[in-house]
């Protein structure tokens, strides 16, 4: 088998040293079988350039740390096999999020803010009774909640969304999906009117123009089209006829 030599072009910029302007740096690595960008980037760091910044945590497509633009598209680098790419690979940090350095961006702060803004926790007036058994829930409902909860906050949907690229207050598909998760949860006692107050504007669901880059790029393959439409219908009804 002939092994390819990969040319990897990486965006370099460190906000700590702003006088060095952003530039692209090119590295070459020998491809090995089943090589992922995780392996490739670590090889570069260990053997060629120990100052290169990027984020990996789980290296198993679970934690959402390693999203970046791979040849223009938002991808989880850890699960991108180099054999699925041409031999010239261009890596850029995700747009929208604050740059920490090179390929590393601050998705954590963005999502914490999102969770605060959408109040992404169960709202209930009950108190927990340690002696009681759990409240019953239909398994179908549990699965439906989990389906939306699978989001790993990687930011691919946000980075790919043109709306989010021009409006920094837009909650993005991840934010709207989060709302959908709490809407279907019977434990959450918020009314549609409550949700409307959070997302019933152009910052929320009505800012979404249906560009579907989120749906195409979500590494968890969440059904974002369906989730967004679901939220849009519910919120439009609430906006026009008033909430329950």
């Amino acid at each position, binding site marked *: 088998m002939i092994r390819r030599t990969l040319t990897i072009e990486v965006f370099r910029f460190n906000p700590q040293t702003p006088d060095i302007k952003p530039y692209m740096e090119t590295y070459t690595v020998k491809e090995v079988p089943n090589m992922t960008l995780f392996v490739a980037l670590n090889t570069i760091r260990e053997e060629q350039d120990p100052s290169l910044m990027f984020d990996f945590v789980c290296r198993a497509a679970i934690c959402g740390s390693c999203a970046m633009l791979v040849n223009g598209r938002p991808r989880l680098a850890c699960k991108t096999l180099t054999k699925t790419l041409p031999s010239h690979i261009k890596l850029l940090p995700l747009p929208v999020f604050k740059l920490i350095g090179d390929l590393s961006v601050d998705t954590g702060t963005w999502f914490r803010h999102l969770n605060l803004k959408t109040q992404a926790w169960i709202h209930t007036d009950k108190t927990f009774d340690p002696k009681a058994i759990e409240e019953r829930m239909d398994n179908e409902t549990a699965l439906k909640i989990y389906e939306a909860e699978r989001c790993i906050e990687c930011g691919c949907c946000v980075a790919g969304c043109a709306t989010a*690229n021009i409006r920094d207050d837009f909650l993005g598909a991840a934010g709207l999906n989060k709302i959908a998760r709490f809407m279907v949860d019977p434990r959450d006692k918020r009314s549609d009117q409550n949700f409307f107050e959070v997302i019933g*504007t152009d910052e929320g669901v009505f800012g*979404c123009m249906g560009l*579907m880059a989120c749906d195409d790029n979500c590494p968890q393959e969440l059904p974002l089209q369906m989730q967004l*439409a679901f939220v849009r219908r519910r919120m439009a009804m609430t906006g026009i006829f008033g909430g329950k």
Partner: protein
Amino acid sequence: MLLQKLIGRNQRLDAYLDVAEFLSGLFLVGFLWTHMLFVATIIFGTKIFNKVPAILDATYISYVGIFMVIIVILLHMLVAGRKIPANLQDQLIIWRHARRLSQKDTWTWVFQVVTGISILILASIHIWAILSGWPINAQISAGRVQETFFWFYMLFLVVCEYHAGIGIYRIAVKWGWIHRQKVGKVLTVITCSIVILGLAALLIFRFVIKAGGAP
């Protein structure tokens, strides 16, 4: 912007506007597709074609209808147009973003803007031409097509159908229950059929019908 200032900062404004975008778009596509079917009746001969405006005029649908279409187009222009970035820098970001991402639906949105603005110009000319050449019958239409409008209509047809087809796809995607791949396929078929009908009608006007009666 202007509209928002007029109504004031109503909490529900964004919801109303989004629904208005949806309804105006839906109405216009409904109109356009019906309108195309009416025009295509020329395939079955001038008699049948001429019957359509006759009935519409007799029931006053045409007078009300023309007025409504113009109003809705203006409304649609405002509500759908509000999503077009106001400043150049944002437009550049979108353009660059679409190129880098090379994702279908982002591109089609960019084209939606371009075709929408083209329609604004083309439809004004078209409606002006129709109204100034009133009434509607096969001879007058054929005259228009043969004298000046053939290439205009060729372009207009494609632009309109593209904008309508994508528009309805976008409505389905944003509001509907059905997966977008499926919606996309069905709508491509419908759009292509209508373009073919439109082409057939245009060719008949151009080469088959005898012009006459134009003012």
